[in-house]
């Protein structure tokens, strides 16, 4: 059972988890974009006459 004194802890952890998830997602989003642009660039260089 959660007591009033301890109920703040899980909430704080949830926020930390969310923020960490946001940072990880941000990093991976940018990585995916860079990889995609590089693939498109290679596609253009390799196949466009």
């Amino acid at each position, binding site marked *: 059972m959660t007591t009033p004194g301890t109920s703040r802890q899980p909430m704080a952890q949830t926020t930390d988890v969310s923020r960490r998830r946001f940072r990880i997602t941000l990093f991976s989003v940018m990585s995916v974009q860079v990889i995609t642009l590089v693939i498109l660039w290679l596609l253009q260089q390799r196949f*466009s006459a």
Partner: protein
Amino acid sequence: MHWLNWVIVVGWLTYVVIHGLRRSTGTKQIEGYFLANRSLPWWAVGLSVMATQLSAVTMIGTTGQGATDGMRFVQFYFGLPLAMVILGVTLVPFLHGAKVYTAYEYLERRFDAKTRSLTAFLFLVSRGMSCGTIIAAPAVVFSAIFGWPVSLSVAVIGVPAVLYTMVGGVQAVTWVDVKQMILIVTAIVAVTVTLLVQIPVSPSDALHIAGATGRLHVFDFSFSLTNTYTFWSGLIGGTFLMLSYFGTDQSQVQRYLAAKSVDEARTSLLISAYWKIPLQAMVLLIGVLVFVFYQFQRPPLLFNPAHEKAVRIAQPAAYGLLESRYAADLVTRENAARVVAQARDRGDNAGAAVAMQTFRERDDSATAVRTEALAMAEKVTGQPSKDVNYIIPRFVIDHLPIGLAGLFIAAVIAAAMNAISGELNSLSTTSVIDFYRRWIRADAPDAHFVAVSRVATGMWGLFACVVATYAVNLGSLIEVVNRFGSFFYGSILGVFLLAMIPRARAAGAFVGLLSGMLVVGAVNFGRPAVSFLWHNVIGAVTVVVVGLVISAILGGGLVDEDSSSSARAPS
């Protein structure tokens, strides 16, 4: 169409409608109906954001654009990830923290009622119209496939979406979006694989053939205000467009307002940023592969069957002559394409280069004949031809295997329903929250507002269906949708940017908004060659500059400290 395709389409439609209706629990309160009690997980919101923007226009218009114009359209989305990151650290915390139902509601807290009402009104006009064009896109498919009247096609697509949106609110919309996104991505991957299997040359040869016609030329680094599809237009103009769309358009804002927390709202936007460019590139690649496919299968001279029929009746001799020339070009083009592949297979680069030159010449000649046929169709029918929207539907009907055709058509309908449902839900929310509850009846039980919202959803659905019936011939649907928005988007973004500047005042915001729209209107009519992507930049910058100047001239006093501080302090 084969009965199995029908089973897939009807089965999927039935499933999503039932699923949407079952998700209507907890929608008796207004917060439940409009914001799912702010309880949705980030991944569901992220998929829903993606689904709302991935409409049938993408499935039909963008693939067609890939077939005729190649991959360069993907540059249009280069600003999207950047916009999502900017929004994640600026507007999203403001809007989510303000605990509002609509983005425009926030503007009244920060500025005044007339700024809120004007921006909300502009949203209703532009989104209401674009909602119609989004229904029109799959209606084109249905008309082409089954020969149904456009109005019937519109009803078949619009009614199920309106039904579950009316009953289930944002909760039904979001969870149906999640299911439909899975179907859409499955269909895109399946069609890509099928095309690669059906093309009678290796994937490498196929890409060389596409590349020879410039269809794999993605990047254009020239700086031009008149060319929509350049790197800089996409990055700068695209960023402003996406900031406006995802930051101020209620159809998007409402998705992340329903998230559990600010962090989950921001993460959901980034999920959308993740896949937009890769997915868009894949959709365009389908079009490119369809182009390659038609090097080895004879395509129709006109993809629009109605126009083809009309031209055959009106000018049989002239059209017959064009068909003969086209057929001759196609034969020599196909031979050249096969020689290219054979020469490359045996490592004969010189032979491949010569064959490639012949291939290009024949392709140019075939394209010229098609241009003549399109002009003839326009003259005969009195309608803009825009054959681009019929390329993929014809390919699906004529060449996809049984089952996969049904899957693709179900995905097109799913995409349309996603976009429609999200927009109807947001149109209803804005109508009720920003107008009905604000100006007509402020105090009423939640049940009353939910009932009014359901009626509003139905009315907007009807309006969208009427617009869709007449929007079919407006031209390349994808451009039409974006053009509608570009008249207002940038200026509305400018108002939200002003809202984050403490010295901005209500009068400055309102005059700035009007100035922004006037300037964009003047640019649009005075310099029509300027690409609509730049309208967003021009509108936003004008609003901010004019707004700050007016605010400086008038000084303080128009915003009280409470509203100002609440706007600056998101929780």
